[in-house]
């Protein structure tokens, strides 16, 4: 037996889908291609609470599907012929569990969500005896929900679809979109308008639905039905009532699907699928070609011009950042020096004040640590100030490049304030007891002599109470004068020692600070020079790409065009296949 004509077209389209990264389309075509030869499958689709389950039950005259408020299963239910009623739960891994039909709803509800793939039900009904399978699907709703996906997935295997919509409202935009989607992938569609028993205005709704469908270019009949009336008719055996239910027409449509020869069905299905896949793929490619075209639309000269502008900009920026950096660093240099000088000057002032009044002997123990601490603080503060400014300079320079560029790491080396040597205590002469006694004797001797001579004129002896008293007074005065002199000398020595120490520290750290700033300058200069070089390199590379790229782009666009033409040809061939299968192709614009 020779392979059917449609197989070749289908395979070619399948390869194209795969080649262009549309695995989803390829998979659908695969399912069509590998479908075993069997009876027609009619899927029943619709949004929630439209009476889908009732309709299936009414078609079969059997309570197969859960209806009313019972939750409808989240997986498709395939209903086929069986001599004895029975149901099978098919799990994710195709494992099969037989359950009685009447316990089906409970059994399905008891399974964890997502563990089932589908449910197969067999019922002894003449309608199904020719191999027809009715597929009740989960309600369509939120496009991202697994239920909706499971329902739409059924389309890949369906020969025909009954779209269920109730007569309480007209077809909404979502339902029309669903109808359009179904009609693209499936050759036969009918809209069953349910619940006409309770809706007084169902005739108007049916008319408006027909108008909406034809306006949207969807080829589908609208069949008003009432499942309730159908059940009542079956119960009463009332033929006339059955006709009123609208079901004979729907069953006639189903029978029409069944009566088609399998080859015709397969060819038609293949034709429709190929056309749908080809149309979607062409759309994808066309978007890609358009994107490429837009890229190509900006001509080479414009692109080159643009890079030239950017190169000029970069040059300007280079001189700008270099000037900025050298200005800022010079400012920082002088500011830092002034800052440190100011701080040490204030320390020296305090030293002067301290030793103008205080006695080094008494205050040095306290003064020494204070001086060390204050100096360390001054150095540290100046240093932090320098580091902050350096950071700020780095940011300012980076800003001239634009925010997206990294900053250089600019922390200067350690301040080293903890390495400052402690101030050494000066040699301080003390006024000891022996010295005091000697000095006192010297003073008292003078006093006794002086007043002894004076009082001698009055006939008193040399050593009399007055001269002795004067001697004591003179001794005290001499001791005090000598003490004051020694204190001044000590103060002068302490002052000098402390000031010299401060000068040493200042000298050393102003040098360190200058070095640190120079270090920062070097770091920033290196970093931003490298950055500017990178940008320049990038620009020149870009320029080369622009010169080389336009040729490649043209090649790519031409390839896409050829591919689109090929798919259009496939689309047309599929249309001819459909024609041979007894159906005129409608849309032929690829």
């Amino acid at each position: 037996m020779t392979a059917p004509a449609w197989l070749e077209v289908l395979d070619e389209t399948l390869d194209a889908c795969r080649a262009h990264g549309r695995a989803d389309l390829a998979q659908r075509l695969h399912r069509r291609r590998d479908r075993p030869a069997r009876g027609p499958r009619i899927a029943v689709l619709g949004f929630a609470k439209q009476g889908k389950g009732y309709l299936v039950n009414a078609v079969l005259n059997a309570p197969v599907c859960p209806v009313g408020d019972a939750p409808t299963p989240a997986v498709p239910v395939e209903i086929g012929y069986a001599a004895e009623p029975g149901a099978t739960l098919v799990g994710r891994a195709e494992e099969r569990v037989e359950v009685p039909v009447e316990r089906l709803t409970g059994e399905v509800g008891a399974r964890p969500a997502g563990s089932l793939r589908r449910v197969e039900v067999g019922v002894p009904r003449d309608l199904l005896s020719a191999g027809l399978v009715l597929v009740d699907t989960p309600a369509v709703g939120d496009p991202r929900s697994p239920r909706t996906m499971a329902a739409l997935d059924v389309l890949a295997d369906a020969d025909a679809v009954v779209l269920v919509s109730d007569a309480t409202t007209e077809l909404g935009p979502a339902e029309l979109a669903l109808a359009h989607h179904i009609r693209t992938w499936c050759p036969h569609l009918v809209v069953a308008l349910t619940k006409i028993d309770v809706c007084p205005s169902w005739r108007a709704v049916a008319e408006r639905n027909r108008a909406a469908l034809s306006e949207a270019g969807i080829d589908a009949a609208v069949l008003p039905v009432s499942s309730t009336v159908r059940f009542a008719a079956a119960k009463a055996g009332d033929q006339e009532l059955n006709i009123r239910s609208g079901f004979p027409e729907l069953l006639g449509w189903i029978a029409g699907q069944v009566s088609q020869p399998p080859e015709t069905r397969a060819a038609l299905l293949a034709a429709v699928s190929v056309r749908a896949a080809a149309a979607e793929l062409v759309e994808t490619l066309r978007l890609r070609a358009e994107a490429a075209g837009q890229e190509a639309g900006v001509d080479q000269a414009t692109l080159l011009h643009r890079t030239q502008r950017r190169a000029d900009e970069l040059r300007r920026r280079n001189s700008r950042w270099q000037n900025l950096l050298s200005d800022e660093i010079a400012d920082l240099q002088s500011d830092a020096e002034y800052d440190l000088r100011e701080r040490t000057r204030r320390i020296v002032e305090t030293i002067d004040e301290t030793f103008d009044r205080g006695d080094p002997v008494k205050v040095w123990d306290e003064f020494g640590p204070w001086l060390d601490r204050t100096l360390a603080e001054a150095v540290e503060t100046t240093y932090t100030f320098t580091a902050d400014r350096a950071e700020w300079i780095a940011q300012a320079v980076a800003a001239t490049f634009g925010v997206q560029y990294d900053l250089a790491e600019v922390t200067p080396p350690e301040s080293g304030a903890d390495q400052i040597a402690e101030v050494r205590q000066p040699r301080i002469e003390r006024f000891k007891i022996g010295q005091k006694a000697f000095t006192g004797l010297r003073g008292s001797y003078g006093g006794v002599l002086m007043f002894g001579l004076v009082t001698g004129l009055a006939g008193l002896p040399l050593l009399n109470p007055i001269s002795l008293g004067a001697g004591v007074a003179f001794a005290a005065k001499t001791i005090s004068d000598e003490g004051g002199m020694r204190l001044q000398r000590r103060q002068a020595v302490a002052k000098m020692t402390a000031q010299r120490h401060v000068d040493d520290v200042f000298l050393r750290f102003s040098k360190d600070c200058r070095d640190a700033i120079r270090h920062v300058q070097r770091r920033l200069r290196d970093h931003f020079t490298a950055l500017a070089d990178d940008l320049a390199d990038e620009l020149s590379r870009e320029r080369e790409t622009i010169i080389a790229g336009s040729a490649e782009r043209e090649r790519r666009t031409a390839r896409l065009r050829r591919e689109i033409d090929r798919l259009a040809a496939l689309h047309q061939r599929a249309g001819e296949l459909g024609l041979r299968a007894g159906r005129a192709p409608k849309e032929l614009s690829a």
Partner: protein
Amino acid sequence: MTEDVRTLLADACAFYRDSRRASALLREALDHLDEPLRVGVTGAAGSGKTTLAAALGDWPSRALRDLELVDDPSPSTLTDASVQLLRHLEPDELTTLRPTASSTFARQTAVDTVLVLARADETGAGRIDALLTAKQLARRAWREDPVCSGFQGVIAVAAQLGYGARASTDDEFELLAAFAAVPREELERYLLSVDAFTDPAFPGPVSAETRRSLVTRFSLFGVKLALTLIRTGCDNRLKLSAELVRRSGLGELQDTIAGCFAARAEALRARTAVISLETVLQAEPRPYSDRLAARVERFSATAHDFRELRLIADIRGGRTALSGEPAEEAVQLLGAQGTTPEERLGLETGSDPQDVYEAGLDAVLRWRHEAERPDRAPAERAAAHVVVRSVEGLLVQFTG
């Protein structure tokens, strides 16, 4: 409460006087404080908004008198509360319900929406127990579905049936009674569908046109229900009408709107104003606007009305451990049946103030005990605290 909010908004107006958009919004909110409570009726096309609004609106009722129903309000309209219609309580439809409020205050005080399972008579293909099934579905959703827990109620309503029944005429009752007199077996096939009901072969002299208008006004389900009710004892128009209205869910919806919206008009209007303010604060943040935000926060923390409404919904929705008589007493004390002291305490209007005071004292002692029982879960104690605070609030009116 209104005065506090008025001051708050006036300050905000002064603060934003240089922004035309903000001050227009704030001015509108300020003006709305003096207008009637506005309740929006929203829902997808075909869910029966207009029918429901008409059914509620034509109701000459004291409780709903000072209330303005807005059918399908535009997003820019200031509404204080809303009745949200839904055809089915399906997960897909429920997820589309609540655009999460952008304002923190609005989220914290979300006590402004009643969910309506609309066209309840179409549930389950219009079987005779459709309304009961719908009622159960609504109740279950309110208790169990977390999406529904934020509403002041989930109520199944057959608005058309309720509307038709309430406005029914003696002629219509006579007609229905005549149909009910026909033997059931004979009538059954004519009640199968609207087409059958308006069939020329229908027994009796009533014209097809009259039958059509009847079925359009009551729906086929309504006609079937009415016939069943007449056969089982609703033998005059008023009885039938009352029973149909009760079953349609319209009465329950009206009670909820009266208790949760109309009785709290002041709090809900203040809430609308504060939400407007918070929207402005979010859209145009400025230095020092956080002071206004802090006042908004303080307002939401101190407004007891919102806590009462939230707790009423939680108790009725079965989300607290309270049930039976204590639950009924709690919702009454919280003001579900009216916010006057007498209504809260279940006393006759115009009772002796001394009696009211004593009843209040009794309630406050009992609920204080409830609030401090160490064997209760913290959530229960917190709920009891809210009740205590409500009763204390009404007692204060006597000591002042």
